[in-house]
Structures are given as C-alpha cells and as structure tokens.
C-alpha cells in the first residue's frame, strides 16, 4: 500500500516531465507564469469590454438556437395575447417567442443586449483612459488603431444585432440606414439596392444581417481582439511613474497567481452585473413596438446609445442640398454629411492622432510611462473638446425627449444643439486647459511649500499664518526642494500617515497593524540591488 501511495504522488511530476520531453514547454510556460503586470484601477476598463464580449458570445449562441432569420410573413399565434393574429415577419415572431415561449429566453435576450451596451461603453471609457494618459504613443500606435477599429466594428455588430428582431423600432432604424446608404453620391442607389436585394425593405436583409451579425462581424471582432491582446502582451503594459518605475521596466505583480485570480474574480463580477441587469432592468421590449410597418413610427424613436451621436448629427444638420445641374441634375442630399462624412472624419482623426501628436512634438521615442492628464494640458484639452462634441451630438440624438420632458420647444432644442456644437467644444478646450494648468501649479506649490496642516499659528506681531508640513527635510528656511516626478503629490496630512492606521475588523477590532503604509495601495518599493540609485520615475518621457 505504501509503495502505491508514493507512486501516486509522483504521477503529476512524471506526467509533466513527459509533456515537456515531447513539447519543450517548460521555459515558455515559466515565462508566462512569471510575466509582470502593473496594476492600477484604470487598467481594468478594457477588461470590462473583453468580459462583456465573452458574455455576448455565450448568450448569443443561445439566441441563435431559437431565432429565425427570415422575413417570410407569418401570423403570430404565440402566448403574447395583444399581438395574436397579427401578420408579421418570421424574424419578429421568433423574437417574440424567444421572449415569451422559450423558458428563460427573455433573460438571455436582455443579458445579450445589456452586454452589448456595456461592451461599447467599456470600449469608449477604455479609449478615453488610453487617450488621456498618453498610452497610445509609440510603440503602441498600432494597438490604438486596432482599438478604434474595434469601436466601429462593435458599432456595426450592435446595429446589425438590434435590427434582427424586425420590430417597429428596428425597422425604422433600417429604413434610416437605407436612406443613409442612398445618400452616398454616385453609387448610393446601387449600394442600397445591392445590400437590400432590391428596393427597401426587400425580403433578404434580415438573413444577410444575421450572417453578418453571427459570423462575419464576430469573426472580425475575435481577430481584432486577439491582435489587441497579443500586442499588449508583447509590448508589455504601460505603467504610471513612481518609485523604481522607469521607461525600461515594468513594476507590478507576476501574472500568477494573484493577478490572474483578480482577473478571474473581476470577470465573474462583470458577468454577475450583466446577469442582474438582464434580469431586473427591461431593455428593448419589442412586444410594445409591434411588427415593422413602413407607415408606423412613434415619437422618441432612439437607437442604442452608441448610435445616438449619429442620430444627433443628423438632426442638427441644416437642410443644405447640393444640386449639380448637369443633364437631368444630380443631388447630394443633406443626409450624406452627418452620417457618412462625419464618421469618416472621426475615424480618420482618431486613427491618425498618435502620429499627428508625435509629429507636432517631434517626439519619436518609445514611451512606456503614462502621463497624468494635467501634465499634458493640450492633449487633455483636445480630448475634452472631443468629448464635448460627442456629448452635444448624443444629447441632440434625444432632443425630442428632452423637449417633451422639460417642456422646451423642439426647434429651440435643435438650435441649441447647432450652436452648442460650435460653441461648447472650444469652451471645453479652454476650461480644461486652465484647469490642467491650475492643478499643475498646485502640485508644484505643495512640493515647494509642503502640505497644508490646517493649524493656524499666531505670530508675535499679531499676524496669522498656516503651518505647512514640508515634504522633504532640509533646504533653506526649512523648505525642501522636490522635483515633480509625474505622479500623485500628497496633499493631505492623512496621505503622509498623520492619521492613525485603520483598525481591521468589521464589527469589532481583530488586530492592530504594526505600521502605517507610506501610500495606500502602494507597498514600499526598493530598487534592484545591483542598481545604486532609486530612479525618480521621470526618465525620458
């Protein structure tokens, strides 16, 4: 018995040796296990998108088992009484069945939709993080471009997806999409006719959108996401400046086990939140909209949030029609500019930005250290300008709802949007620029004079002054000279450890920690032994 036990214990080891003899994986595996990742909450935003995508794949596969991508006319005879006897497309009928006659189908549908919204939201927020911290700079321009493409491919995935139920709302969206394609000069009518297989709506668009939505676009997304992650892995993640952190190293945790565990936990949290939303919050209640009929529409017809900015730009566009008096005459409709030209410009601007900035600053070095937004006021202000532009457009996409709820004239809302689109972004630029400068100045002030203590001292001659706690010892008149290193400057006494350490325990104290951490969340770092000096972290940026 004892012999056998010993054998059992050595089995995994022997098996591992066997595997390595055949595949020589131990060195690559060690490298993977040992890879170092820097940690910061803002680095997790992209992960939310990734995890939402996984949920999208899981729930999406379920939906395909029940959805029928056909525009054949059927008469609805399912459980939902108000629509019984209504002629509708098979696509809409099967979507209704998914919601009412498939056990647990509604929660899958709603989780799929919420995950899609979260996917796009996470992409946008992640992009803002990358932009405002300068993470897109050399050597990561390619990944920035892939990321921008992911937004637009995700946009297409979303649009083709919410068109599939063929309900009243999505049919209206399709109609507008056909109008947009029609507006393209010269080839518009041919493009539309080819995509819809004849005149709108035809009877094939749903099955074409279906195959695009479940095969072509997800395939493209998977390819882009793989390339995106592969590059992050290859180029290693950026990091914030800080003690011991330089442009040439990565300071953080090894991937296994702690970092990987945290990622796994985070995935479950994202999944759980999507499940909660899918169960508790109604989304796209297609049974209220009825089947798509070309003559029916209602007020407050809004697309999903990430499409709304284009809806807004369409609403704000003045009725400028360009007529070309050759032959019978040709037309460029006003619809062309806000829906085809504007997205084109946005794609171009966003993909080219890293190169434009590098050229402007004549900065062609590699950057692995992030910048605080305040330290690059110009870029931050440009970003704020873009965000303001986007917000004005998105709000204008729902301007009829705003007009209705706040009792404002609809035409006034449109004009406010038109003027706002021109006025708000420059204003955002100016305000952001000033705020950045102000924050910079305050950092320098604290570094030079110390932290405000809140203690007021009365001098013998009757003057009052506040006592400052210098951040460094020595220097003339008790003030230390400290250089700004591109990372958070402590501005409160608590940050210097003036407050007693928190006592552990929820209801009752269990033990008192021996010492207070120097900076919350950042354990003390010491430089590598073979290096003499501790890098300030402000190495070439």
């Amino acid at each position, binding site marked *: 018995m004892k012999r056998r036990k010993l054998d059992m214990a050595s089995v995994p080891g022997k098996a591992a040796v066997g595997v390595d003899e055949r595949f020589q994986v131990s060195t690559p595996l060690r490298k993977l296990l040992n890879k170092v990742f820097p940690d910061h909450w803002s680095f997790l935003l992209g992960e939310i998108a990734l995890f939402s995508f996984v949920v999208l794949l899981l729930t999406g596969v379920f939906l395909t088992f029940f959805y029928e991508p056909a525009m054949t006319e059927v008469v609805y005879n399912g459980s939902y009484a108000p629509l019984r006897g209504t002629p509708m497309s098979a696509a809409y009928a099967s979507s209704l069945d998914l919601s009412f006659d498939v056990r647990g189908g509604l*929660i899958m549908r709603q989780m799929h939709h919420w995950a899609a919204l979260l996917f796009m939201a996470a992409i946008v927020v992640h992009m803002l993080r990358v932009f405002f911290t300068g993470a897109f700079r050399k050597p990561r321009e390619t990944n920035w471009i892939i990321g921008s493409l992911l937004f637009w491919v995700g946009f297409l995935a979303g649009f083709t997806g919410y068109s599939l139920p063929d309900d009243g709302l999505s049919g209206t969206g399709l109609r507008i999409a056909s109008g947009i394609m029609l*507006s393209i000069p010269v080839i518009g*009518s041919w493009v539309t*006719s*080819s995509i819809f297989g004849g005149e709108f*709506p035809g009877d094939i668009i749903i099955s074409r959108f279906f195959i695009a939505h479940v095969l072509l676009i997800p395939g493209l997304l998977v390819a882009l996401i793989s390339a995106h992650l592969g590059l992050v892995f290859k180029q290693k993640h950026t990091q914030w400046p800080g003690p011991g952190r330089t442009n040439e190293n990565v300071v953080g945790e090894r991937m296994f086990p702690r970092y990987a565990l945290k990622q796994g936990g985070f995935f479950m949290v994202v999944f*759980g939140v999507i499940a909660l939303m899918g169960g508790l919050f109604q989304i796209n209640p297609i049974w209220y909209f009825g089947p798509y009929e070309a003559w029916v529409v209602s007020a407050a017809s809004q697309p999903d949030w990430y499409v709304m900015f284009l809806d807004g730009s369409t609403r704000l566009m003045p009725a400028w029609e360009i007529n070309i008096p050759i032959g019978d005459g040709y037309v460029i409709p006003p619809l062309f500019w806000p829906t085809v030209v504007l997205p084109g410009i946005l794609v171009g601007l966003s993909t080219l930005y890293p190169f434009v900035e590098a050229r402007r600053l004549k900065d062609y070095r590699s950057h692995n250290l992030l910048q605080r937004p305040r330290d690059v006021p110009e870029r931050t202000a440009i970003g704020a300008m873009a965000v303001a532009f986007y917000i004005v457009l998105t709000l204008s996409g729902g301007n009829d709802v705003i007009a209705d709820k706040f009792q404002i004239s609809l035409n006034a809302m449109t004009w406010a949007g038109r003027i706002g689109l021109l006025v708000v972004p420059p204003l955002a630029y100016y305000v952001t620029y000033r705020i950045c400068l102000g924050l910079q100045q305050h950092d320098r002030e604290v570094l030079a004079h110390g932290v405000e203590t809140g203690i007021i001292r009365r001098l013998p001659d009757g003057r009052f002054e506040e006592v400052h706690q210098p951040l460094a010892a020595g220097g003339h008149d008790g003030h230390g000279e400290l250089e700004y290193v591109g990372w958070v400057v402590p501005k409160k006494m608590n940050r210097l450890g003036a407050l007693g350490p928190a006592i552990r325990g929820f209801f009752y104290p269990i033990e008192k920690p021996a010492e207070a951490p120097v900076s919350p969340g950042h354990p003390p770092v*010491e430089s*590598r032994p073979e290096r003499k000096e501790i890098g300030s972290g402000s190495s070439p940026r």
Partner: protein
Amino acid sequence: MSTKTEHQAHPGPEPLDVHDPRLSRFDIVREGARRDDIEIVHYEEQVVPGSKAERRLTRTVASFFLLTGLAATAFLAIYIWWPWEYEPGTGGDKYYTPLLGLTLGVALLGIGFGILTWGKKLLPKEVSIQDRHENDPNAPESRKITGETMLYLADELGVKRRPLLGISLLAGLAPVGAVAAAPLVGGLISNPHKNNQMFTTGFAPADGHKVRLVREDGRPIRPADISAGGQLTVFPGIEHGVSNKHADSPTLLIHLRESDAQVSREANQRVGHGNYMWGNYAAFSKICTHAGCPASLYEQQTNRLLCPCHQSQFLITDNARPVFGPASRRLPQLPIEVDDEGFFVARSDYTETVGPDFWERP
C-alpha cells in the same frame, strides 16, 4: 515563519544551482523569475498563517462561495418550478425573469467577490520588476541579418534579373484576385432602376385603371369619411398595397379646413399642381424625403407635419415645403379625385420621387 521576504541573502548574478537541496521552493521560484529578468523585490504575506485575521478572511471567502451555491440552487429551482408561461395581467410569471436575474447575478457575484477576496487579501503581496528589453544592443545587428536574409531571398528568386517573371506573375495574379471578388460582388449587385422601381409607387395606374386609396384594412374611402381638419393614412388599393412590399406608398390624406384649403390650392397653382387636390382634400407622401421615416405627426392647428425621427417639419398648406429640420425637399403630392362610385382614387402616380434623396434623383 517570517511573513516578509525582503531580498535577503542575494546570490550574485551567477545562476543558482536549482538542485541544491538547501534551497526553498520560493528560492527556486525567485531564481526562475530572475532568469526571465524579473526581480521579486518585495514579497509580503498579508495575513499571519493561523492568525485570527486569516481565519476570518477564510470564513468570508467561504461564505461567498456558499452564497453562490445557495443562489445557484435557487436559480435552478426557480428555473424549473416557477410558473414562467406568459399570462395576461399581473401573474407570477412577471417575476420569472427578474428572479432568474437576481439569483444568477448573486451567484456570479458570489464567485467573483470570493475569488477577489481570496486573491487580494489572502495571497502575499508582491512587487516585481521586469525588464522591457526594448533597447536590445544586439537589435541593429539582428535587423541587419534578417534584412540581408530577406534581400537574399529576393536575389535568389532573381526577379530583378528576370523582370518578365515578376511582370507575368502580377499580370496573372490580378485577374485571379478579381475572380475571387467577382462572385461576391456580382452576386450581390442589383440594379436599383429595375422596373423603374425608384420612381414608381403602388399608385401607378395599372392597365389604365386608376388605383383606389384604401385604409389599412383595405376598405376604400369616401370624402365624408374624414372630417374637416382630420387626416388618414391611405394605401394603394392593389395586392400587397398595405404591406412593406410597397414601403414607399403610404400616403397621408388630409381634409383641410376651408381657409387652409384655399391657401393650399393657391400654393398648388404656383408649382403647376393646380388640379392635385380634390375639393378640400389633399394627399401627400408619408415617407419623409430626408431619411424615409413616416412623417406622421400632423399638427392640425399649424398644418405642419413632423417627422419624429429627425424632426423635419413640412408645411402642408405650402406644398408640404420643409420649414424646419434637416429635410431639404418637399413631400411629393399625390393627385387625387373621386371615381364614379364616390371613392378616392389616384389620378396618376406621384409626379415627384418619393422617399429619401439620392444622387440621380432628377
């Protein structure tokens, strides 16, 4: 046992003998990391093994996982036994989806927070430093070698010496590329002007018969059916006239009040549509000339028609001219009259193009 492992006893840069029995497992881990140019500079247990804090955290993690078990079981129970089939009214089935979401969400969050607590609180904290190796001193040399290798490949192929090879290959490949693209493009392409479809609607008279205006249920309409100031969506009285097969045909038939009708008639005269109205009745395409939504919100007081998609507004009494919003072209007017039996018919098809604008619209 010490809870901190602050790089004590550093062996020099020379590699450790990992078979040395005196080494602890952590020493070997650290040596492995070092061989990948990773220095574990700080490694600290967060809880003392066997301490009260550790037991407490273990209990927390365990209760998260047990919560997951409970919630998942509840999910299954609800999934199987809760009445889920749709009933009109306010039955228990309305709670089916929320309950599934709640239990599934709690179950997943339980695992999530359990793992997070485990990872964040129970595992040792560490700070490791890894080199990026971007400025490899050997890079220029290896670039040179790879570059020369690739150029040598080109030399071997000898395209430079034998240009005909390259030219003929290109000349051969270009059509092959086109062959790959042709079936896709050729299969999809569809002539938008087949049967003049972009310029006709269901109201085009067929075999000399004028097409009736009908309601959604297919019944024809008499003038008396619409009161003054009222309006009605009408369709061509043909097969599939009331369906998406004729998505461009839906029309708004409006009975204008006397004074508005007068203004409207004068406006009609100005554009040469003198006989398009019948009495005080006028019919305009319901399909917005902007993006094709149905412009369906008619404001009786101002005689404006609003498209709810992008808020284009059309003044009906002025030939449905766009007066606000992004639309640039008036709604086409359908010439109407009343036939011998007293029902509305279209005198002809629309004389202007219906629906959103496009390049070759005359």
